[in-house]
C-alpha cells in the first residue's frame, strides 16, 4: 500500500465566488470529485486504473483525471462562469483499492452525454484518452472499461454487416468459420500468393487473409495481389460449390488510396476487405460506412494494440478497444485464442468475446466486465482467433470461443507436411467432427482427442496434422488477468 497517500473521500467542492478565485486549486475541490454522485442513465462512465505518484491522494488523482479529460485546466479560469460548468465537469465518484495491487486504484468517472459529438470515436477518445495519460501526478494510468448509454450507442452505425448477415451472405451456419493468413507474410509475388489462397480455399477453408503489413510493396503491388487472389477465390468456389473469400487488405497511406483499393476489390467481386487498427478511428469509421454502402464485410486486424493493451498498469484494456470497434462498425476483430501463441487470459478473452457478440453484457468482474452494457440491437461483431492454433486444439477452441467466430490457422494450414490443401482439409474435418460431437451431446472437451483421432481414421491429412503438432502448446502466465475479489459487489 502506498503509505503516504490518504484517501480523502469526504472532500467537498468549493462553491460560489470562492470557487473562481484566481490561482490553483485541488481538482477534488473544483468539483471533479463528487462522492455521492449517482450516474445518470445517460452518462458515459469510464473506469480507470490509476497509480498515483507517492504521496498523491488517490481521490485527488481520480479528480484530476476527471478534470483533465473534461473541462479542467491546471488553474482556475473565470470563463467557466459563462457556461453550465457543473454539467460539463466529469465527476469522479468512486475510488476502490485494486485487490492485491498496492498503490493502484480503480477510479470511476461519469461524463455527461453533451460532452460528446454523436457517432464519433475520435471525439470520444480525444476526451477520454486525449490528455490524461501523460499527467505528472500519476505514475501510470489505464482505461479498464467504459459504459455507454443506449442514447449514445444509437448514434453509431455499428458493424457494417454483422454476424447474422455475414453468415447469410456466405451461406455458412452452425460452425465457426475457418481462415488462414497467407505465409510468408512478406516476399511472395502476386502469382505465388494467389497459389496459397487457392490451395487453402479449395482444401476447405472459408477465408484466407492478407497479413497486417501486406499493402503494396516492391515484391507485390496491391493490384497484382487483388487480381490473383480473386482468380484463386473464384477457382476454389467453382471447385467446391461453396462461397469463399479472401480478406484483401486495403490499408494504405491515405483515405483516397484506401477508397481506390476498396472500390477495386468490389469491382472484382470480393465479399470482404480488411483494414488495420493503425489507420485510426476516423479512417475505420469511414471504411465501415463504405462497407455498409457497398455490401462488403469489413475485417479489422488489431495491428498495434499490444503496444498499449498488454500491461496492466498503463494503457487501454482491449475490452475498451473491442467496445469502440463495435461502435465504429467493423465486422471482424481479432480477439484472442486463449490457447494460441499470443497473450490471452481465458476469463478476459471470454469478456472480449461477449462484448463482440452479445446484445447485453451484465457486469461480470471475473470476465473483466465492470458495467452492465446494453448494445441496443447494434449488429454483432465476429471475433477472430488467430496465432499459434492448430487442429489438435479444436475441442478447446470451440469450448472457449463458441461457434460464432473465425478460427484462423495460418501455420497450422500452410505448415502441413502434405501441403496447404491437406492442412486446410485437416482443419475443416477436425472442426466438423467436433461440432457434430458437441451437437450430439458428447462431452467433447474431455473426449476431444478421441473425437479427433476417430475422425482421422477416414482423413489422413488430419492424422498427419495431429502427429505433427501434437505437443505444441503455449502455456505461459498471462500478463493481463482480471483483478477482482469475488465477494466484492460493484454496482455501476
Amino acid at each position, binding site marked *: 500500500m502506498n503509505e503516504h497517500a490518504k484517501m480523502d473521500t469526504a472532500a467537498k467542492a468549493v462553491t460560489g465566488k470562492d470557487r473562481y478565485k484566481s490561482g490553483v486549486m485541488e481538482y477534488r475541490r473544483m468539483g471533479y470529485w463528487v462522492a455521492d454522485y449517482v450516474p445518470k442513465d445517460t452518462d458515459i462512465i469510464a473506469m480507470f486504473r490509476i497509480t498515483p505518484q507517492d504521496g498523491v491522494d488517490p481521490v485527488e488523482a481520480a479528480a484530476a483525471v476527471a478534470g483533465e479529460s473534461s473541462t479542467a485546466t491546471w488553474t482556475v479560469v473565470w470563463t467557466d462562469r459563462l457556461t453550465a460548468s457543473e454539467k460539463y465537469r466529469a465527476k469522479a465518484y468512486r475510488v476502490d483499492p485494486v485487490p492485491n495491487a498496492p498503490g493502484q486504484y480503480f477510479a470511476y468517472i461519469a461524463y455527461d452525454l453533451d460532452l460528446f459529438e454523436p457517432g464519433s470515436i475520435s471525439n470520444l477518445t480525444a476526451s477520454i484518452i486525449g490528455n490524461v495519460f501523460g499527467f505528472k501526478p500519476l505514475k501510470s494510468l489505464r482505461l479498464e472499461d467504459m459504459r455507454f448509454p443506449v442514447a449514445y450507442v444509437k448514434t453509431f452505425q455499428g458493424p457494417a454487416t454483422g454476424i*447474422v448477415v455475414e*453468415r*447469410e451472405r456466405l*451461406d*455458412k*451456419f*452452425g*460452425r465457426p468459420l475457418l481462415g488462414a493468413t497467407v505465409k510468408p507474410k512478406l516476399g511472395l509475388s502476386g502469382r505465388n500468393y494467389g497459389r496459397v489462397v487457392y490451395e487453402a480455399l479449395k482444401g*476447405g477453408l472459408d477465408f484466407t487473409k492478407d497479413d497486417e503489413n501486406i499493402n503494396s510493396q516492391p515484391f507485390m503491388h496491391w493490384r497484382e495481389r487483388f*487480381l490473383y487472389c*480473386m*482468380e484463386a477465390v*473464384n*477457382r476454389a*468456389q*467453382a*471447385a*467446391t*460449390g*461453396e*462461397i469463399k473469400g479472401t480478406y484483401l487488405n486495403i490499408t494504405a497511406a491515405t483515405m483516397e488510396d484506401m477508397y481506390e483499393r476498396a472500390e477495386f476489390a468490389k*469491382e*472484382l*467481386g470480393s465479399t470482404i476487405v480488411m483494414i488495420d487498427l493503425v489507420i485510426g478511428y476516423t479512417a475505420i469509421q469511414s471504411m465501415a460506412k463504405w462497407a455498409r454502402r457497398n455490401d462488403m464485410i469489413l475485417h479489422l486486424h488489431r495491428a498495434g494494440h499490444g503496444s498499449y493493451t498488454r500491461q496492466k498498469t498503463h494503457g487501454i484494456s482491449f475490452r475498451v478497444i473491442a467496445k469502440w470497434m463495435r461502435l465504429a462498425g467493423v465486422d471482424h476483430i481479432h480477439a484472442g485464442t486463449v490457447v494460441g501463441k499470443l497473450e490471452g487470459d481465458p476469463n478476459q478473452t471470454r469478456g472480449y468475446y461477449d462484448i463482440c457478440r452479445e*446484445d447485453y453484457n451484465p457486469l461480470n468482474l471475473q470476465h473483466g466486465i465492470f458495467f452492465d452494457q446494453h448494445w441496443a*440491437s447494434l449488429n*454483432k461483431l465476429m471475433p477472430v482467433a488467430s496465432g499459434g492454433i492448430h487442429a489438435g486444439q479444436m475441442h478447446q477452441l470451440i469450448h472457449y470461443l463458441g461457434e460464432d467466430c473465425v478460427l484462423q490457422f495460418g501455420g497450422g494450414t500452410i505448415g502441413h507436411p502434405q501441403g496447404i490443401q491437406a492442412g486446410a*482439409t485437416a482443419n*475443416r*474435418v477436425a472442426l*466438423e*467432427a467436433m*461440432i*457434430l460431437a458437441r*451437437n*450430439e*451431446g458428447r462431452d467433447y472437451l474431455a473426449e476431444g482427442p478421441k473425437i479427433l483421432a476417430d*475422425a482421422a481414421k*477416414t*482423413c489422413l491429412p488430419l492424422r498427419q496434422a495431429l502427429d505433427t503438432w501434437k505437443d505444441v502448446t503455449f502455456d505461459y502466465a498471462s500478463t493481463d488477468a482480471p483483478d477482482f475479489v469475488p465477494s466484492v459487489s460493484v454496482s455501476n
Partner: protein
Amino acid sequence: MRITQGAFSFLPDLTDKQIQAQVQYCLDKGWAVNFEYTDDPHPRNVYWEMWGMPMFDLKDAKGAMMELAECRKQHGDVYIRLSAFDSSHGWESVRLSFIVNRPAHEHGFKLARSEKSGRRIGYTTTSYATREPEGQRYK
C-alpha cells in the same frame, strides 16, 4: 467432385441416426427445422424448394426423420438439406444447415472467364447440371 456447402460436408455422409441426433439438438434449442431440395446447387442459389413448412411445433426428431424419408422418396436423386431456424431476437435466421442427401453423381461447376480491360476478369460459375432443364437434371 463433392459440394462442400453446409456444416458437415467434409465428414462421411451422415447416417440417419446421426442426422436424427442433429435434428434433436436443433429442436431442443427451440429451433424449427425443415428440409429443402434442389437440382441447382449453385453456391448462390439461396432458395432451395421447401419440403413443406418449417416444423415449428415439432418436439421429437423422429417426426422430422419421417418427413425426410418422404422427401427422399420424391427427391432422392437431388440435393436435400436440413435448415434450422432460430426466431430469437437478434438472430432470426438459420442456425444450422447441412446436406442430408446428394445425387449419385455430382457434376461440379464450370468457371467462365470474360476478359476485360486492365487485366480484370469477370467470373461466372455455372453448374454443369443446369445444362438440362429444371426437373430433368441428375436423371
